[in-house]
């Protein structure tokens, strides 16, 4: 019996949501088990303690494996068509193209356009200043070597992270705000050009491509040259030997031992 894509996609969605819940439950159970073991006393990890937790989670483990395999079986039995690709255009380029098409604006239009352009310079500038201000204290903290005496590095790095990371997160949030505002401004400017084009039925003009080509080949081969020179110096100054020395011993940091 042929089945509509509509129905197939609904089945896939429901199956996907169930699998998602199982995956999340599995992740949470793993984390809770790990914390349980950790809190169980000194030297808590052993084959027995881990084995006991895994057997407690057996049902969830099988369920998760079943859900993954079931997903494959479902796509074989009821294949869903691929989603149509949605176009995502660069707002800046779209605006530039429309600007070229619109030709010369009137004075009032030009004033509004200028305002938007200024705003789009102000937003990043303000963001940059705020970001830099945010980084002052973490910067001073990081470059004060007394904060990193090496007595208890984990505690020192935790303290540093608590200072650096909030600043970084606020900084990224500021950047997000900046892109939202910039995008809104681009949309307003685009709307002005659209209006000009609609009103004057302006003729398209030749599109400007004013990006200067980068002297890529020069940079490329310079990088290659520096790379080779550095590797050769590294072999002689012993930094290559250090890589080997460290790599042939189990890295206690990598695997979380110390």
């Amino acid at each position, binding site marked *: 019996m042929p089945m509509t*894509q509509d129905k197939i996609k609904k089945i896939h969605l429901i199956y996907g949501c169930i699998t998602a819940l199982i995956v999340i439950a599995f992740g949470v159970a793993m984390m809770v088990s790990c914390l349980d073991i950790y809190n169980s006393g000194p030297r808590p990890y052993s084959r027995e303690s881990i084995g006991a937790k895994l057997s407690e989670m057996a049902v969830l483990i099988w369920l998760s494996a079943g*859900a993954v395999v079931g997903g494959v079986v479902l796509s074989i039995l009821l294949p869903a068509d691929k989603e149509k690709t949605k176009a*995502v255009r660069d707002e800046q380029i779209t605006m530039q193209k429309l600007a070229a098409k619109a030709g010369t604006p009137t004075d009032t239009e030009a004033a509004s356009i200028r305002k938007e352009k200024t705003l789009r310079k102000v937003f990043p500038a303000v963001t940059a200043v705020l970001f830099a201000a945010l980084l002052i204290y973490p910067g001073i903290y990081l470059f004060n070597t007394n904060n990193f005496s090496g007595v208890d590095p984990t505690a020192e790095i935790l303290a540093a992270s608590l200072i650096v990371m909030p600043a970084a997160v606020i900084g*990224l949030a500021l950047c997000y705000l900046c892109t939202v505002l910039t995008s809104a401004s681009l949309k307003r400017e685009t709307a002005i050009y659209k209006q000009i084009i609609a009103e004057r039925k302006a003729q398209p003009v030749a599109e400007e*491509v004013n990006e200067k080509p980068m002297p890529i080949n020069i940079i490329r081969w310079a990088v290659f040259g520096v790379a080779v020179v550095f590797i050769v110096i590294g072999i002689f100054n012993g*930094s290559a030997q250090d890589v080997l020395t460290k790599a042939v011993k189990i890295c206690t940091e990598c*695997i979380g*031992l110390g």
Partner: protein
Amino acid sequence: MKKDATLNMNNDNTETIKPKTGLRKWWAEHKPTKRRIIQLYAALLTNANLKGFGNGYIYIGDAKFACVPGMNCYSCPAAAGSCPLGALQNALNATNTKLPYYIFGILLLYGFLFGRWICGFLCPFGLIQDLIYKIKTPKLKKNRFTRIASYLKYIILVVFVIIIPLLYSGKMPLPGFCKYICPSGTLLGAGGLLTNIKNENLLAMLGPLFTWKFLLLVVFLVGMVFIYRFFCRFFCPLGAIYGLFNKISLLGMNLNKSKCVDCGLCIGECLMDVKKVGDHECISCGRCVNVCPTNAITYKGPKILLAPNEVGGQPATKKPNADPCDAPGTPLPKKTKIARLVVAITMLAVLAGSLVYYNVIHKDPAPVESGGEVGNLCPDYEMPLYFEDGTIKPSDSRGKITVVNFWYIYCSACVHELKTEFPDLHTNYGDDVEIVVVHSYEEFGEDIPTWINKNLPTDAGFVHCRDGEDDPFFKSLGGTSAWPITIILDEEGVIQYKMIGSTTYEEMSEVINKLLAD
């Protein structure tokens, strides 16, 4: 770009399909693409020491001198080479003695050759994420917020990979990213080693750090199910470094601006946070090649591995998930076909050769059966002293309780316990207990006595010496490649306590008190 994260499943299509075509359609969409084959090949080649999974050892041969291009923990038992990110942090950590030319050169070379093509084709951790993302669940698509969040990896690069190792340079081995974040280390390194029954003793070493790293790993793994390349996009400092080279790398993506009609389909199809094809976020996965209606997007570089999808003016194939490398087009010239065959045969020969070298020719150190177990007399080895002429051996301290600790200066667990757990032994037991601190044989090009004087307490009563070539004393106690080890000998020189891994003052003093009471 879309404003909000949305589910990628909707139901606007009402076509019907013939159920009979299910398996064939599924296979057409899911059969391994050329990119996937190269990913699997690279993962196997850079993890050719497969016998490590069986015997629980990491590979310790000279090939570890070379860094592999992708994120591939060198503490994974199968790892054939070194992780460039781990090597970079350790080199920055050692800048007090020498400048890290070698690893800078390696990163520049990989950047020049591949850029983030490595992420799409060569990195095993990228492959793992690609496969996990295939689990059938609703997916969180990219949006403006994920694009901003993609800059987080640069902050991680600066803070954890560069600043922290530099701050502790000469004081403490501290590869910040490896130690506090890296999921590749937890999954491949810890996962590969600790799940082996032969490394059961390492489990006793696990504590708060492992717990933190494990929780983080679970968050990353769950994130990878719902968000494409969750780790690569937001957290990976290695991808951040390679991304800087995307514009100049020999391999990668090329966008022909004169052909581009700015339809936006490429960016819509792309799962990474790219703004333009080939920018610093592009991993050369090739998805966009398939949807570009004017064939403006091609692979850069020689056509020997991948056809650049030149289709002689025809629109590129738009079959879902068809391999862009195999897109129909002008047939390849005979010369290219022959070259491809030669390359394929060479690649297979290299893989076969590596598998034979790592698994058959290279011999891991055999476990030394010299009875260095609790209850046995301690094996006797002569060790050169650091601060005096002459040597010392365990039997020299008969008649006294002796604590022997094995360490090396790049091991932060070792240095930490020597700074925090051992000094109290001398304070509380004075001359009743002899503390012998044995450094691993290697010289590191470091002046170890100077390092000791600068970084370890000088009034802790430590007798500093080093093991013989190839660390025979360490190995006689069951040591392989995991430091530290601590043993406590009674007055007759019999081993009464042995800890492979970090120890604590409390544990040691409990044993010493018992021995003193006897």
